[in-house]
């Protein structure tokens, strides 16, 4: 069922420390699942209401139109919506799926989970030190996500973490990260305001090597993907990092706000071109937005969602589970 942190992280030869719960208790897992579903269905106009099994009781053109409407309202986007609906429609018409309300809905969940699970892979932190780089548009929750990842790595897996405050542009970004570093018990490496972000990343990796730290997480300034000079800067930070450690950054994550519409596809595509993005962190899923853009990103670009943010607390950053996500979108 729900994906655990352990499944989501590839820690290589590092054995999880005793303090890490070997397996989450079923009680808590249910809690998380419930929480995700609650957060996804918080809206009065939840998708779940619109796509109940009864929608498929009578199957005609209107059924498919309503399904299309629901998916588009969830920000899945026209092309992916059309693909999903066409596939389901075809399967029902050909008799591969019985024209029965529950069966059709279950098949819909399967298809959505399949799309959401495209190119699934764990977060690669096997190297020592492993370098994780966080990128994304302004205000999508990069710094907060880093704080929470650091907390999980440090408190649950007993890893030593160095945070690189390479967002030297936004006022007080380093202070924000510092607060998180304290909470997580991680070390913070920062530069002067306006300093070269590459040099901050460089210093952080040096510091991590000197201290034998396990993971370096590099925070970068939020930037719009249309600012080509800033995207070039991002490539440069990457180059600085890979000069120090050839395969690094080992993992690059882009944070995407769940409220983002179709522009999210452009964000993922262009950030990927500049910084070879390995996965998406879908943040702010605790609102009424369904984050359907993640489906479009997975289907179109083959970039999987790896983590989701469903609330403000530390536990609210969760490994992404395609099946849970599909169910939460549609469950009763």
């Amino acid at each position, binding site marked *: 069922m729900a994906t655990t942190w352990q499944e989501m992280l590839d820690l290589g030869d590092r054995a999880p420390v005793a303090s890490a719960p070997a397996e989450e208790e079923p009680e808590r897992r249910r809690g998380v699942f419930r929480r995700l579903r609650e957060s996804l269905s918080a809206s009065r106009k939840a998708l779940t209401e619109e796509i109940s099994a009864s929608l498929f009781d009578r199957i005609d053109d209107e059924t498919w139109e309503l399904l299309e409407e629901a998916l588009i309202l969830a920000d899945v986007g026209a092309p992916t919506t059309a693909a999903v609906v066409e596939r389901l429609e075809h399967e029902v018409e050909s008799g591969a799926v019985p024209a029965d309300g529950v069966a059709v809905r279950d098949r819909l969940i399967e298809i959505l989970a399949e799309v959401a699970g495209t190119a699934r892979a764990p977060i690669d932190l096997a190297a020592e030190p492993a370098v994780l780089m966080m990128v994304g548009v302004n205000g999508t929750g990069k710094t907060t996500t880093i704080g929470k990842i650091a907390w999980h790595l440090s408190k649950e897996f007993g890893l030593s973490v160095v945070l690189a405050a390479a967002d030297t542009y936004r*006022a007080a970004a380093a202070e924000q990260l510092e607060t998180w570093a304290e909470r997580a018990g991680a070390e913070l490496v920062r530069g002067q305001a306006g300093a070269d972000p590459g040099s901050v990343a460089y210093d952080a990796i040096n510091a991590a090597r000197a201290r034998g730290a396990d993971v370096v997480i590099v925070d970068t300034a939020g930037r719009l993907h249309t600012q080509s000079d800033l995207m070039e800067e991002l490539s440069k930070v990457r180059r600085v990092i890979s000069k120090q450690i050839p395969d690094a950054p080992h993992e690059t994550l882009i944070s995407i706000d769940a409220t983002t*519409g*179709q522009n999210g596809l452009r964000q993922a595509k262009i950030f990927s071109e500049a910084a070879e993005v390995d996965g998406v962190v879908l943040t702010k899923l605790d609102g009424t937005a369904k984050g359907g853009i993640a489906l479009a990103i997975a289907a179109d670009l083959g970039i999987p969602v790896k983590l989701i943010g469903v609330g403000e607390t530390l536990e609210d950053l969760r490994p992404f589970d395609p099946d849970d996500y599909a169910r939460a979108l549609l469950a009763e």
Partner: protein
Amino acid sequence: MFDQLSDRLQSTLSEVRSRGKLSESDVDAAMREIRLALLEADVNFKVVKSFTRTLKERCLGADVLQSLDPGQQVVKIVNEELAELMGGTGEELAMATSGPTVILMSGLQGSGKTTACAKLAQYFRKQNKDVALAACDVYRPAAVEQLVTMGGRAGAHVYEQGTEADPVDIATWALDRAREERRDVLIIDTAGRLHIDQELMAELARIRKKTDPDDVLLVVDAMTGQDAVGVAESFAEAAEFDGVVMTKLDGDARGGAALSVKAVTGKPILFASTGEKIEDFDRFHPDRMAQRILGMGDVLSLIEKAESQVDEKAAEDLQEKLKKDQFTLEDFLTQMKQVRKMGPLSGILGMLPGMGAMKQLKNANIDERELDRTEAIILSMTPAERADPHIIKGSRRKRIANGSGTKVQQVNALVKQFDQMRVLMRSMANGKMPSPEQMMAMQQGAMPKPKIRRR
């Protein structure tokens, strides 16, 4: 900004236009395209439905189908309806008749409230108003520091009590202080909150009640998807906002959220935030924006922008110099700085009509560093050299290259291009339009060569 949407509409309608006669199935086809384009632009599904319905009715009207150029008529109707949807002509902020004008900012996390506060402060500072900011975001780590730094940059006073105090108390305390200190404007920054977080929404309502603001603004990220409408409805209920600030409009988000929020709540979009810099903030002009979507250009905004930056007198002097062929590198430097004050060149290009249709220019990437380099070269010249670049020979060239961190070839190229440009400008100043060959030469030799990258 709305590039893709504009492209879609243009390509659909230019097909119709080329045919000259419009059938009902033509209209249906065009409507399908428009509907898809609007959905891709994140315009809310329900808004799209009613918009295309209205549009179709008008397009099928007898006067359109029988007109000589139905395609053109459709363009006109789409333009009118889009402008109508976004709020007709621009609306104004309400200002207090006495005492400070109080503006309460609200929005989701990450929509850009704190930055918008500082930009709004700067906007008022430009009108010589005394502005104060109240730091009521006590939740996000370092939000207060961010407001202090950015507010300081804008030249505003920042009232803060750290993160221990209650936001409602900070707001009322700040209002008292703004009254005492006779500030013209008080802008209250609040924490980002989810529209379904009842506790925080109630807090926002309390701040509103206690401070009785003249304007409550909702800050909306231009990249927001279908959810924008739900968010706006909830904020309308709790905070009764009066207008919207659209942020991150400098990206390539098609900004359908802007269309939807206005359509659903009836609240106008008052401001648009269009860049990283504190001055990248403008009044939102819905009518002009609609024209821009259709690729008609936003010439009015460009002229206003130029007017606010360019000194009349200096412009006249320049005209005179051009005529008399006294234009020097020094003047060129001044010119370049003035143009750059208007913001990134790519932004300026976007306001020109027809730019949306020119594919290469749409993705043109004017490398600002190239401009920096040109500036550096000129700055490394002596006044005599700037006045008469012809004296720049061997050792001078080397010195300039060294001083500006460039190569001798780059200095040479600059001098040569300047020469060509001067010839051209002289003929233009004397009322002669340059020949296409001359234009080509100027383009190739234009000092900062625009780097065109295709994505």
